[in-house]
């Protein structure tokens, strides 16, 4: 197997040999496929997945799919060591350090590497092995039997089998040991450690033709096209849309009424219906630019961030719990990230900066040597919570092994890939992407960028905090930094001091009361006995005789009252204790920041063949997908500031992603904003801009928006403004039969789609019309309430509720109303919400006691505000629920219903119950749930 004396082949040359082999095979197979694969038709069909359940047509997708199957299977064959007739280099190549280092990383580095170097041994490099630890070198080249590491492993001393779970390692298997032995026997050969960076030569895996796909080319500032009816264009968006409509013989639908528009923009920008005052003000505003003023006004509302922050929290997969295990291990400080996102939207933080902070906030500015934590540094660090959101079981030893960690890393890569880059990156985790030019190698180059912070061999566990609320202070964790804004720390200290003082005051009072209590209690005791007791009490407990101890024990209820007894004894003390308990329940953990930060000492990254950590392949180094950069592009990686103990890799990635003209970054974001206003994206597959994604319906508009977004300083609010003031957006949602025929699925936007409220908007609206909305913002999540039968309701405080976004976002206990209205499980994130229509929604809205309670609050509010006039109450109810007054018919209908309901023989025998029933019906109506 190992020919001694032969020159070791460098891992780079092995790697390119591996790639070349693949490419040759791919070309060969592609040619065969194009010739009809005649000889092997049946087998081919089997491989390609025809089936009776889903008769597939030979579509373009199918072509790619089948090609993909061939390419991938070929790559797999080519990369499998010793795979029969397939030419392979792996087994022919002499062993090098790259064959053994992955084994040592996996089995040995938890104790002998990184910050924990037991016996002063660091196994992560050959130099470290030769240098050895306290007991000498770990290996002697050429002498495996005499090498300490081989002995230790062979004797079962390492890894110690009583500490396997605690250290999250497995025993070294026989084949790994054989490989280690063989490598040492061969003299522990080392190949030069050249950097793996994209070279100037042609990349065998990604060609220039691959770079020609539309989404991999920078967006182009197309001029708005000319249209036949330019009076219908309010801004360039309309020209792009109208041009296509006119080509189909269509035009825009009429403009929606101002009431409709107000309701539309209110829900769209703030997630809440307009109030009665807002409706009145808007209706009275006759200035020509009233509409755009209103758009500005809503954009300036702090409610805007609560609506649009939620969109981004879906992208990030925000959760207040770690997940993947039964226990809801709470993320004590995740809410800071939620608040950061809301504030970023409210302050219109430029999107490029927003991304840089979330991907590399820890490398943007030096927080370690800063004299105090500024708001900017705070934001930078909190923002890195973005890639800490995936479900994570690694806080527990038994689910904290390398494969578990690797899953968490893969999820983080997916959040970045799908949410920011619009690529189905996960496919390339196990093999080169079947459809897009994303080689397996490029996935691992991306993984290497994150190694300084997400290192499966040097892992920080989630902060382990017992469940049970804020006051339950567990040990401080590894994934948070002991930093806080000065004002927050001060407030925390002040509160702690207050608690301490109150506690001390209670203690003093307890002593005082105890004395009084004794005196009263002992008054009825015979004097001799009383004196004996008092004598005993004057002594220190340790100085009492056994008789005295026994005596005091006998009279314990008289002489040593507990706190409960004292509370009964003195009403004032009870009040004091209750106040103290309230104060203590508001006790918060020491403020820290949950973050992701580079630790400056990353493990090397090896490709995991088939995504399997037990099958390490060639070593790779940090880099961005080749298809998104010019041939020979090198990521400019430098330490973020002089002397920084950080790699600067993520900062380089963040800067590359936000470079002007990046093909994906701006397109993905404008498409996301567009989708959330217009009901569907210009690219319908918002998380897939690759070949299997949907092609853009208006490619030039997408590019124009992307370029404009960048040109306007990546301002998301400007983007909203642009879209909302377009004629396209202001269309009515009516469907006429011509539009239905020519544009059945509204691809060309011949009308606004009728849209159902998202779960949060529906719930918040129910609370808002009932006047039960508590608009306090930010802070720790509000716990949900889970009934024994499984019904989960949003947490409340008396008869008020905070907005849904401030509720505890758990993985297994989602408020039922949000769940039935399609709040998704975050596995790991969500790019498009479902819009289902199912019976449980009806059942919930009709039967749920909290919805009925809110109907009652709605009714009482009407009675309170519009005292004693049923007619006006009906008008008010319609205005609040539908943002419009009732028509004459509706008003009469409601009035008649109300009257009949309130009849002594009617179903509701009080005016209150009758109005409640009416309000309940309004909340249950289609008009409440849908936005025109």
């Amino acid at each position, binding site marked *: 197997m190992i020919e001694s004396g032969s020159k070791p082949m460098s891992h780079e040359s092995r790697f390119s040999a591996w790639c070349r082999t693949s490419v040759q095979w791919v070309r060969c197979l592609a040619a065969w496929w194009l010739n009809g694969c005649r000889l092997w038709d049946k087998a081919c069909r089997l491989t390609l997945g025809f*089936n*009776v*359940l*889903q008769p597939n047509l030979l579509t373009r997708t199918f072509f790619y*799919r089948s090609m993909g199957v061939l390419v991938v299977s070929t790559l797999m064959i080519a990369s499998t060591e010793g795979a029969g007739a397939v030419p392979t280099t792996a087994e022919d190549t002499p062993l090098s350090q790259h064959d053994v280092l992955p084994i040592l990383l996996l089995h040995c580095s938890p104790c002998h590497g990184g910050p924990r170097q037991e016996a002063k041994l660091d196994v992560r490099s050959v130099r470290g092995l030769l240098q050895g630890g306290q007991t000498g070198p770990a290996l002697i080249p050429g002498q495996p039997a005499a090498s300490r590491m081989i002995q230790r492993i062979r004797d079962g001393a390492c890894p110690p089998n*009583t500490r*396997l*779970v605690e250290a999250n390692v497995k*025993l070294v298997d026989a084949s790994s040991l054989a490989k280690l032995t063989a490598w040492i026997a061969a003299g522990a050969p080392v190949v030069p450690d050249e950097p793996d960076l994209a070279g100037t030569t042609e990349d065998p895996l990604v060609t220039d033709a691959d770079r020609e796909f539309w989404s991999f080319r920078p967006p182009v500032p197309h001029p708005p096209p000319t249209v036949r009816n330019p009076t219908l264009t309010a801004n360039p968006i309309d020209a792009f849309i109208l041009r296509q409509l006119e080509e189909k013989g269509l035009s825009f639908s009429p403009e929606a009424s101002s009431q409709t528009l107000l309701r539309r923009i209110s829900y769209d920008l703030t997630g809440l219906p307009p109030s009665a005052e807002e409706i009145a003000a808007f209706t009275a505003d006759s200035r020509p630019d009233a509409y755009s003023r209103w758009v500005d006004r809503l954009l300036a509302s702090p409610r805007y961030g609560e609506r649009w922050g939620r969109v981004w929290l*879906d992208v990030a997969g925000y959760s207040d719990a770690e997940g993947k*295990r*039964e226990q809801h291990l709470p993320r004590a400080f995740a809410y800071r990230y939620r608040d950061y996102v809301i504030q970023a939207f409210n302050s219109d933080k430029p999107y490029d900066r927003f991304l840089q902070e979330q991907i590399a906030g820890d490398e943007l500015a030096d927080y370690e040597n800063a004299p105090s934590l500024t708001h900017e540094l705070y934001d930078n660090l909190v923002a890195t919570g973005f890639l800490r959101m995936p*479900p994570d*079981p690694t806080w*527990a030893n*038994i689910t904290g092994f390398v494969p578990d960690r690797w899953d968490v890393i893969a*999820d983080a890569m997916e959040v970045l890939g*799908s949410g920011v880059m619009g690529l*189905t990156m996960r*496919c390339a985790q196990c093999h080169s992407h079947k*459809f897009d030019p994303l080689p397996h190698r490029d996935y691992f180059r991306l993984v290497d960028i994150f190694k300084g912070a997400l290192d499966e061999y040097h892992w920080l566990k989630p902060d382990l905090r017992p469940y049970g609320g804020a006051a339950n202070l567990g040990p401080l964790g590894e994934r948070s930094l002991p930093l806080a804004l000065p004002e927050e720390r001060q407030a925390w200290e002040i509160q702690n001091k207050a608690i301490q003082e109150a506690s001390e005051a209670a203690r003093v009072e307890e002593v005082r009361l105890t004395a009084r209590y004794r005196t009263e209690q002992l008054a009825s005791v015979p004097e001799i006995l009383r004196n004996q007791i008092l004598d005993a009490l004057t002594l220190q407990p340790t100085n009492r005789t056994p008789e005295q101890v026994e005596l005091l024990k006998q009279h314990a209820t008289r002489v040593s009252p507990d706190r409960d007894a004292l509370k009964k004894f003195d009403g004032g003390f009870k009040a004091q204790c209750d106040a103290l308990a309230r104060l203590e329940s508001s006790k918060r953990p020491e403020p820290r920041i949950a973050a992701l930060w580079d630790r400056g000492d990353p493990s090397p990254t090896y490709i995991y063949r088939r995504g399997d950590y037990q099958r390490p392949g060639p070593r790779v180094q940090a880099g961005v997908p080749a298809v998104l950069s010019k041939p020979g592009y090198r990521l400019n990686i430098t330490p973020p500031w002089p002397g920084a103990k950080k790699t600067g890799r993520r900062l380089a990635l963040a800067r590359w992603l936000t470079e002007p003209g990046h093909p994906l970054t701006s397109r993905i974001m404008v498409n996301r904003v567009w989708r959330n206003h217009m009901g569907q994206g210009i690219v319908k597959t918002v*998380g897939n801009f690759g070949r299997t*994604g949907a092609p853009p319906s208006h490619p030039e508009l997408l590019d124009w928006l992307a370029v404009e977004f960048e040109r306007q300083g990546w301002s998301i609010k400007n983007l909203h403004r642009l879209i909302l003031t377009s004629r396209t957006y202001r269309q009515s*949602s*009516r*469907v006429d039969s011509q539009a*239905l025929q020519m544009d*059945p*699925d509204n691809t060309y936007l011949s009308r606004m789609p*009728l849209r159902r409220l998202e779960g949060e908007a529906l719930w918040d609206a129910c609370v808002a019309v009932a006047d039960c909305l508590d608009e306090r913002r930010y802070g720790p999540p509000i716990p949900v309430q889970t009934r024994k*039968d*499984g*019904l989960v309701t949003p947490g409340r405080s008396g008869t008020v509720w905070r907005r849904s976004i401030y509720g505890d976002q758990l993985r297994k206990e989602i408020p*039922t109303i949000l*769940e039935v209205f399609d709040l*998704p499980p975050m*596995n790991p994130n969500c*790019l498009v919400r*479902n819009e*289902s229509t*199912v*019976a*449980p*929604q*009806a*059942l919930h809205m*009709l*039967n*749920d*006691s909290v919805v009925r309670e809110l109907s009652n609050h709605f009714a009482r509010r009407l009675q309170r505000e519009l005292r004693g006039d049923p007619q006006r109450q009906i008008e008010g109810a319609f205005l609040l629920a539908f943002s419009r007054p009732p028509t004459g018919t*509706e008003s009469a*209908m409601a009035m008649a*219903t109300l009257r009949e*309901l309130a009849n002594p023989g009617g179903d*509701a025998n009080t005016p209150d119950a009758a109005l409640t*029933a*009416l309000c309940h*019906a*309004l909340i249950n109506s289609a008009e409440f*749930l849908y936005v025109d």
Partner: protein
Amino acid sequence: MSTRTPLCQGGPPQTPLTRRAWFETMTGGLCGAALSSLLRADFGGSARAGEPGGEIAPHASLSPRQPHFPARAKAVIQLFMNGGPSQVDLFDPKPMLDRRHGEAYFKNIAGEVENISSAGAIMRSPFRFSQHGKSGLWVSELLPHIARQADDLAVVRSMYTTNITHEPALYIIHTGQMRTGFPCLGSWVVYGIGSENQNLPAYVVLDDPAGLPVNGVENWTAGFLPPVYQGVRFRSRGAPILNLHPEIAGGPIASPLARDFLSRLNQQHLGARPHQPQLEARIASYELAARMQLAADEALDPSRESARTLDAYGIGREPTDSYGRRCLTARRLVERGVRFVQIFINGQIWDHHTGIKSGLISACQRTDQPIAALLEDLKQRGLLDTTLVMWGGEFGRLPIAQLSPDKSDENAGRDHNKNAFTVWLAGAGIRAGTVYGATDELGFAAVENRVSVPDWHATLLHLLGINHEELFINHSGLKERLTGVTTPRVVREILT
């Protein structure tokens, strides 16, 4: 794009918003399945006629579909034993454990032990085994009722899985994958072949009123399949579905007047908005929600059963009442054409880290009689010929003891073991009275005729007439299957 954010990214293909498309896709949530079926029953026929365009995903409904080949089983009842029942104390007797009782063994299996600090020596089973039926099946004394059905069972002693922790092992046994977000077995089945009854959900989950199992609702998720295929929880006591009935009797909406008002509001709203099929669908969902109550109530009402039947299941007395009710409900559902019924127990009653002696007795007492009654009842009604009943947990337990803090033999238990566990199957297509596969002499690992979880999944699908390779969904550019990228085999040796 994700392979794991099914509910958001992987939905059905974008189709024109026709009325028909809406009916096809307006499914999901807690009991979307039931709704969908009712909808189809009402509107399916007329909606199909003469609708233009619109490629409809063939799977977005629950109407029965032809399997790949003739099915042996029409329905499945899965008796899921969460926690990991001890194979060596129930169905896989190991005399060697008696012989080597007390011998140190930890070092040989150190890498496979979760709780290292409490690992003890080899421990014999505290229970006696004896042979039963014509087949001579060995069954522990803890399961006297099931033992009487010995000749109906095919016991697989050589199952193994790949993770020793509950949560991931549950994901594996239910979805074939060690991660969250993949569809469960029952979802795959109803996705593949729909359901016989269009008035009840196709995939019903009977969870324990005393509490959810570990992983909660993730045990019956549809993952990235359309949400219509998600398991629908039916409670065996009280309201079978959350909010199926108003919580306040005689509350406002019970009023026909208010209902009439709502109906007229919706009709006016609809009338002013032509060509908006989702509005019609929503109105229908309100009407149908009411009708679903009737079908579910009837199916779940045990008072329609004879006193003798109730008694056979152990209903009306402890500790069998709760599990007995669920077993009886399962029969009633299968009888009505429900495709897949899954019965859970609260928490992890089979997770005997300590006190296996008392704990196993209690777990068996709760389930033994109801399960035996279910088998017998199905047989008497001729349903066992078409119903597959399967029993098992997510993994097995170790042959060595796990010691309690007091280190006593009396309170010892067994730790998790992924290398061997026992499952059994009965009913449709099963070669009754068989024992398949074997573990080593200590019962630590399956060594003979090993059956992986994907093998087991492939076998179940096979009994339902489904080829596991041909049951897939295209999701995010990947062809996802229950059996994933594995190459499992159907365990034909236990089939007739």
